[in-house]
């Protein structure tokens, strides 16, 4: 394997000194994850160096030239988002930056590892973003009772007063709550359900102000770009989607954890860092991701475009590997039931469609051949018909299961349909807290 393209979060801590090259930025791919936790503010400044004040327009240019894309799931160009909020921020009242530190998808752990390792980097990034869009308020959204919340609070307290009003807000443990419009709605009203696609948050978000919602990893990348520049940022990773990325590898692997990779590293190399080889099935991109046959996708590079071309999705950057005797049908049914339970229950496709396809997948696992027909009919009628992307993700993960089952391992599906069942290992896909979203009574 290409050792230089990986940095694992399980690396033992070393004594920290100033970074060997703190004026030009870290060399290699260990950028976001320092060798040991850096929670103290002076230590953070010694290691990464100070963020030099930059004017807002030049910061936006810098981000555009860096080619940074959002790391929360959608992979949207960060500069485009900054521009949209900055132009909306021309109004009398300033914009708001929301740092999404919730990591709502239970298959991913990268943001909480990042916040544990380098909380000040995420804070730096949020403040840099605030100056880029003209925001006078920054909100760190964390899950209720999470360690990320206490870590960020301690780090913020240590930095002392700032010109920007900064707060840490705890949001309920709900899958849809990490959706940008749901976060904004929660901050405004206490109701954590998505708002729908009619009201873009970059125009009218928190308190009706233009709002930039960015994921924790995206902000940490921003903090480094502001320090070391776009040429440094682009010196690692694939040219079309440069830099490093945090990937969570879990499931049946010898060394589960979070790795920092140069974008464009192959699936095979990423798995090797977790002590695994590319065989069997895996869920890539989160609960709303895609099932893949690892042997087929082994040489695919971990970029948004290459994963999409291979029928996968980058999503939240997680790879959950099934054991060799794992069952794709049982796992998918479990994921679908979870997604049905954790939806916002606002739209028809979510209220009726998701429970229906979850039941179909369970029936298929129980040997009901007609369930396959029902799924093929229902999946397209649910896709893209909700107010948010929650049902679309469920449809995509279900459809990918059917595709992969029709591949080289189709004997597994036949086994189920002939009622021989399967002696599968216990499910490995983490589902997190199951907590149906309901309207908050006020």
């Amino acid at each position: 394997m290409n050792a230089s393209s990986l940095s694992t979060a399980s690396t033992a801590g070393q004594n920290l000194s100033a970074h060997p090259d703190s004026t030009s930025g870290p060399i290699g791919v260990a950028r976001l994850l320092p060798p040991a936790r850096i929670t103290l503010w002076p230590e953070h400044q010694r290691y990464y160096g100070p963020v030099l004040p930059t004017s807002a327009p030049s910061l936006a240019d810098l981000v555009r030239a860096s080619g940074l894309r959002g790391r929360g799931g959608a992979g949207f160009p960060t500069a485009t988002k900054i521009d949209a909020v900055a132009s909306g921020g021309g109004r009398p009242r300033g914009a708001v930056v929301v740092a999404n530190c919730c990591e709502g998808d239970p298959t991913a752990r990268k943001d909480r590892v990042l916040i544990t390792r380098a909380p000040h980097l995420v804070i730096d990034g949020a403040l840099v973003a605030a100056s880029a869009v003209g925001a006078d308020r920054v909100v760190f959204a964390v899950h209720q009772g999470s360690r990320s919340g206490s870590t960020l609070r301690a780090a913020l307290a240590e930095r002392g007063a700032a010109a920007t009003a900064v707060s840490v807000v705890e949001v309920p443990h709900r899958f849809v709550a990490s959706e940008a419009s749901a976060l904004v709605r929660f901050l405004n009203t206490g109701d954590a359900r998505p708002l729908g696609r009619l009201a873009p948050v970059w125009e009218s978000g928190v308190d009706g102000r233009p709002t930039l919602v960015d994921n924790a990893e995206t902000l940490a990348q921003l903090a480094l770009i502001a320090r070391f520049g776009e040429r440094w940022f682009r010196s690692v990773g694939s040219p079309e989607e440069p830099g490093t990325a945090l990937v969570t590898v879990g499931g049946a692997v010898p060394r589960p954890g979070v790795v920092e990779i140069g974008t464009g590293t192959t699936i095979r190399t990423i798995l090797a860092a977790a002590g695994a080889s590319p065989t069997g099935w895996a869920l890539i991109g989160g609960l709303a991701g895609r099932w893949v046959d690892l042997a087929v996708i082994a040489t695919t590079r971990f970029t948004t475009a290459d994963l999409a071309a291979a029928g996968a999705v980058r999503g939240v950057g997680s790879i959950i590997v099934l054991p060799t005797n794992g069952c794709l049908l049982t796992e998918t049914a479990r994921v679908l039931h979870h997604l049905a339970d954790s939806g916002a229950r606002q739209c028809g496709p979510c209220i009726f469609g998701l429970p229906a396809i979850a039941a179909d997948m369970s029936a298929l696992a129980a040997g009901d051949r007609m369930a396959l027909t029902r799924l093929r009919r229902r999946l397209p009628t649910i896709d893209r018909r909700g107010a948010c992307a929650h049902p679309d993700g469920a449809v995509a993960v279900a459809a990918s299961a059917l595709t992969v089952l029709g591949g080289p391992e189709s004997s597994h599906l036949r086994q189920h349909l002939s009622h021989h069942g399967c002696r599968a290992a216990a499910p490995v896909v983490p589902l997190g807290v199951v907590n149906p979203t309901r309207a908050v009574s006020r």
Partner: protein
Amino acid sequence: MNARSDNGVVLTVDPIACRAHGLCAEELPEGISLDEWGYPILPSRPLSRKLLRRAKSAAAACPVLALRVSRSRG
């Protein structure tokens, strides 16, 4: 499709507001069908402008005003 089609009728539904009354599909069966739970499935392409008046009455028929009608821009 001819060049005139870019001036067609575009239907959008607010999926949060929609309560599956199904009246829109009765008013405009050429453009709107219902899924198995009674929620409208809208055409993926703009409808002919000849259907504009009927589309407007479909929108007006919705008890919760979840259906919107607009013209596609050329």
